[in-house]
């Protein structure tokens, strides 16, 4: 009764019952936009806090514990500080691009939210090329980063942006190949179809070893795409101060920071959708009663549970592995991940054609 | 299935060679350059010989690919030229570090030309064209340590990208008007409305770039000069030859409906091309630049032939290209040998060459005579057929100018011959000994120059092939 689906459909019916259609549509746009911004803010706060707590746990520390009970208001306080800080712009920087870059990065992150299914039938835009849409839009964020790095008129920034560009462009391939292997299994690019195809079990279980390999490749590639450690060369503190956002301060810096965490959420959400069934509860083909019991857990909980588990895994990476060198990073992609990914795709195609998956 | 194998035979053989090269590059490091050269020479010879057997006519992939005995003949001519080039440039190749890549690029361009020749569809034609030009740009850069080789590659890729852009624009206009990519399909309707003429002009300029017809010729000399000699000869003979084949057949088939339009354009361009090519060739001092401008002038003569009626125009241009392959490769063979052994390429270096290298001098002289079109050599017959084909339209002004241009060209070809035979030079070239391959290549060229002119049946044969056009 309190599932997201029924709430959203009730709002939808109420709006269309009381307002002319154009206004109803507009107000739905407005509500969705507001919800997205709210989700963004919420995610930023939660993920930063989570990261600090996870890192503290891994390093046997306490982490933030002063502001609020167990320190949960720490990130809120940090955000307030950032909002009130003055935004500085370096001399001789390209004014328009410098100011525009953080918004571009944020815009990309927001656009990426559109096809993500948060719960059963709760999806902003179920576009028929959903997976490709995600690949297409996410490839634009690198332009924002390059813009930021170049317009800052700072060598650290430029170097950071360059590294980031090389990294994102290369790792996009592996992520794309991993996504494609699931597309081959489902035969559809539409995200709702992909989720529906996992009715009898998640692809990571149904797709044998190749699905597992794609999953591992996907996680590695998206970790690199979001510039997270151990692939955080773009903002390697010990070498480049802060990489492409060295010169940013105040709210503009906060936007980059936020975009990074939101991007992590998005890519893990996509990973969860493709490989772990998205909002689909843990089903086992044929075990009807077991599946029914699983269905009692709300779909949104399943989705966020899986996503946050993957986020935890990516944070775990950060505090476990040492940072790679740039040549090691590119070698890893072009000499290992990409060939493995291509071969894996071939294997997956054979499996899909012969119908060996469950 | 067998149909597929026979029709695509030329391309499949080249594909096979490409795969062999790839596997060799990955698999064995131990293969020396000289053994690779002999292997490739053998394979290319097999490719040439196999081209003559088991040919069928037909259409594949829903009209995307077509093959006829005329196309088979054209492909064999190109295979022969490639084989000769590989033979004669072995001296240069022996010390090159990336030889398998060189062969790979060369074979793929040849394959692209084959697909381009066989294309029954503008899309296919375009992809064939790209496959035959993009690797060529990389080949231009094969003298890796020379700066002007890189410059040549850069100019090549830029000009070919630009011309491809224009060509593509023309193709898209063409598609917009006819609703089809296919050249001469059922819904094909090309009657000469202004937009169609515009599309034709765009496509025509694309061709003109690749053929280095005069207003579009500016890249030619620099690219020819900077590239290694093997690549220069490949560019000037094989690449240009394939473009002439395609150009002629596209003119006679796809644009038959607007023949009156393109005839005028062709006449003007051939006049300008001959005159400019010849005048610039007069004052060149680098052998490769000199041959570049002479090849521009030759294109002018070819355009005259194409401006004639379809059958004789097609036949005479193919015949001329065959002769041009022998004569130009003869000259390039000598230049390539000398350049590989001494690194000298200017006309002054060739002074007094007869004293030290009598045989090479004779070969060079014979090739230049043939290029100039002096009677006993094949070049004379080639040009004669071109001009008679062009004269069929009754445009005697054009023919007169062409004849005058031949006289100008005689002057600069003889200038080289005078330098080689008569001029004295203290610092003359050392005696150069070619290996078996390059000698074989030169012998092929000489025999070709002497025989093709008198083998009268050859022209008749080509004429009979081009009947259906």
């Amino acid at each position, binding site marked *: 009764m309190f599932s997201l689906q029924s709430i959203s459909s009730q709002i939808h019916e109420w709006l269309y019952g009381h307002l002319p259609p154009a206004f109803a549509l507009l107000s739905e746009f407005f509500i969705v936009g507001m919800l997205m911004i709210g989700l963004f803010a919420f995610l930023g706060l939660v993920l930063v806090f989570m990261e600090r707590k996870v890192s503290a746990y891994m390093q046997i520390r306490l982490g933030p514990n002063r502001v609020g009970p167990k320190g949960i208001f720490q990130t809120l306080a940090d955000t307030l500080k950032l909002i009130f800080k003055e935004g500085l712009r370096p001399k001789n920087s390209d004014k328009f691009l410098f100011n525009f870059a953080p918004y571009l990065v944020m815009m990309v992150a927001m656009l990426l939210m559109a096809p993500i299914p948060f719960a059963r039938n709760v999806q902003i835009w179920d576009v028929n090329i959903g997976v490709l849409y995600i690949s297409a839009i996410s490839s634009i964020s690198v332009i924002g980063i*390059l813009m930021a790095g170049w317009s800052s008129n700072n060598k650290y920034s430029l170097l950071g942006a360059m590294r980031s560009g090389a990294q994102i462009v290369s790792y996009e391939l592996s992520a794309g190949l991993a996504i494609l292997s699931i597309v081959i299994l489902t035969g559809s*690019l539409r995200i709702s179809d992909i989720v529906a195809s996992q009715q009898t079990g998640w692809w990571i279980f149904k797709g044998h070893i190749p699905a597992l390999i794609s999953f591992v490749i996907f996680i590695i590639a998206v970790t690199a795409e979001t510039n997270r450690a151990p692939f955080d060369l773009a903002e390697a503190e010990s070498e480049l101060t802060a990489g492409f956002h060295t010169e940013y301060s105040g709210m503009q810096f906060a936007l980059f920071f936020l975009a990074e965490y939101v991007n992590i959420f998005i890519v893990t959400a996509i990973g969860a959708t493709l490989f772990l069934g998205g909002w689909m509860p843990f089903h086992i083909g044929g075990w009807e009663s077991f599946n029914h019991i699983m269905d009692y857990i709300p779909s949104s909980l399943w989705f966020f549970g899986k996503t946050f588990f993957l986020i935890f895994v990516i944070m775990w990476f950060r505090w476990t592995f040492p940072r790679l060198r740039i040549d090691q990073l590119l070698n890893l992609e072009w000499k290992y991940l990409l060939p493995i990914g291509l071969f894996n795709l071939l294997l997956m195609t054979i499996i899909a054609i012969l119908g060996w998956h469950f | 299935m067998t149909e597929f194998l026979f029709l695509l035979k030329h391309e499949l053989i080249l594909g096979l060679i490409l795969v062999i090269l790839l596997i060799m590059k990955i698999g064995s490091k131990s293969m020396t350059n000289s053994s690779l050269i002999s292997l490739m020479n053998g394979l290319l010879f097999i490719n040439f010989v196999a081209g003559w057997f088991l040919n069928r006519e037909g259409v594949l992939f829903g009209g995307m690919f077509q093959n006829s005995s005329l196309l088979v003949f054209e492909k064999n001519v190109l295979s022969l030229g490639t084989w000769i080039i590989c033979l004669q440039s072995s001296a240069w190749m022996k010390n090159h570090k990336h030889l398998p890549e060189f062969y790979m690029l060369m074979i793929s361009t040849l394959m692209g030309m084959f697909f381009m020749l066989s294309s029954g569809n503008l899309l296919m034609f375009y992809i064939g064209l790209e496959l035959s030009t993009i690797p060529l740009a990389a080949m231009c850069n094969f003298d890796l340590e020379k700066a002007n080789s890189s410059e040549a590659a850069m100019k090549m890729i830029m000009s070919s990208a630009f011309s491809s852009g224009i060509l593509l624009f023309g193709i898209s206009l063409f598609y917009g008007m006819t609703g089809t990519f296919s050249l001469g399909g059922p819904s094909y309707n090309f009657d000469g409305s202004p937009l169609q003429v*515009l599309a034709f002009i765009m496509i025509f300029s694309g061709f003109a770039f690749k053929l280095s017809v005069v207003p579009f010729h500016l890249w030619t000399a620099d690219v020819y000069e900077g590239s290694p000699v093997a690549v220069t000869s490949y560019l000037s003979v094989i690449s240009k030859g394939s473009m002439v084949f395609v150009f002629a057949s596209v003119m006679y088939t796809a644009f038959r409906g607007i023949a009156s339009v393109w005839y005028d354009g062709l006449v003007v361009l051939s006049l300008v091309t001959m005159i400019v090519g010849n005048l610039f060739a007069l004052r060149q001092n680098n052998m490769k630049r000199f041959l570049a401008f002479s090849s521009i002038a030759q294109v002018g003569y070819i355009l005259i032939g194409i401006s004639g009626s379809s059958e004789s125009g097609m036949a005479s241009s193919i015949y001329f290209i065959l002769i041009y392959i022998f004569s130009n490769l003869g000259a390039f063979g000598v230049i390539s040998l000398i350049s590989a052994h001494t690194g000298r390429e200017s006309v002054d270096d060739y002074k007094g060459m007869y004293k030290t290298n009598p045989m090479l001098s004779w070969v060079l002289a014979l090739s230049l005579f043939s290029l100039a079109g002096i009677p006993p050599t094949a070049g004379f017959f080639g040009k004669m057929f071109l001009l008679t084909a062009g004269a069929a339209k009754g445009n005697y002004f054009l023919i007169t100018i062409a004849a005058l241009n031949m006289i100008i060209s005689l002057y600069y070809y003889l200038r080289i011959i005078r330098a080689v035979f008569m001029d004295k030079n203290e610092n003359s070239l050392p005696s150069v000994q070619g290996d078996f391959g390059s000698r074989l290549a030169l012998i092929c060229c000489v025999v070709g120059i002497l025989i093709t002119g008198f083998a009268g049946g050859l022209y008749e044969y080509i004429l009979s092939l081009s009947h259906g056009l």
Partner: protein
Amino acid sequence: MTLYLFYFLSFLAVLSALMVVVSKNPVHSVLYLIMTFFAIAGHYVLLNAQFLAAVHVIVYAGAIMVLFLYVIMMLNLNADTEPQKGKWLRVAATVAGGILMVVLVGALRSAADTLPVTAHDNQIGMIKNLGKVLYKDFMLPFEISSILFLVAMVGAVMLGKKEIK
């Protein structure tokens, strides 16, 4: 609605294409070019060809233009380093471009009534139909282009391995 979107996208495409040429700063040119590509991707969406739109964005905006941007930022080209063309060259270029435009407009106007009208299948851009066309009708060019890419890669790697002495 669609018509207005079409006009908006066309305006955007033409404007940003103009800005590509006019911009003094090469980086701005590249960014405007990216905008042009987006506008064209929007046109694809209007034609109900979402797949093409996505591929267009992935290939051009996502990969090619990023490499462009990459190289241009590395070269650090500024408005000052741009070669300044002579005045007469500019006049000549303007005249030539103008004439080309006049010819194009004239030819297009005269062709407007003679163009064949074909029924537009609005499902043609769907990925299933596109795949069928690509792998059935245009199979050969598709395969040849893969050879082209292979060879281009071979050439590029070979040139990239050039040892500087």
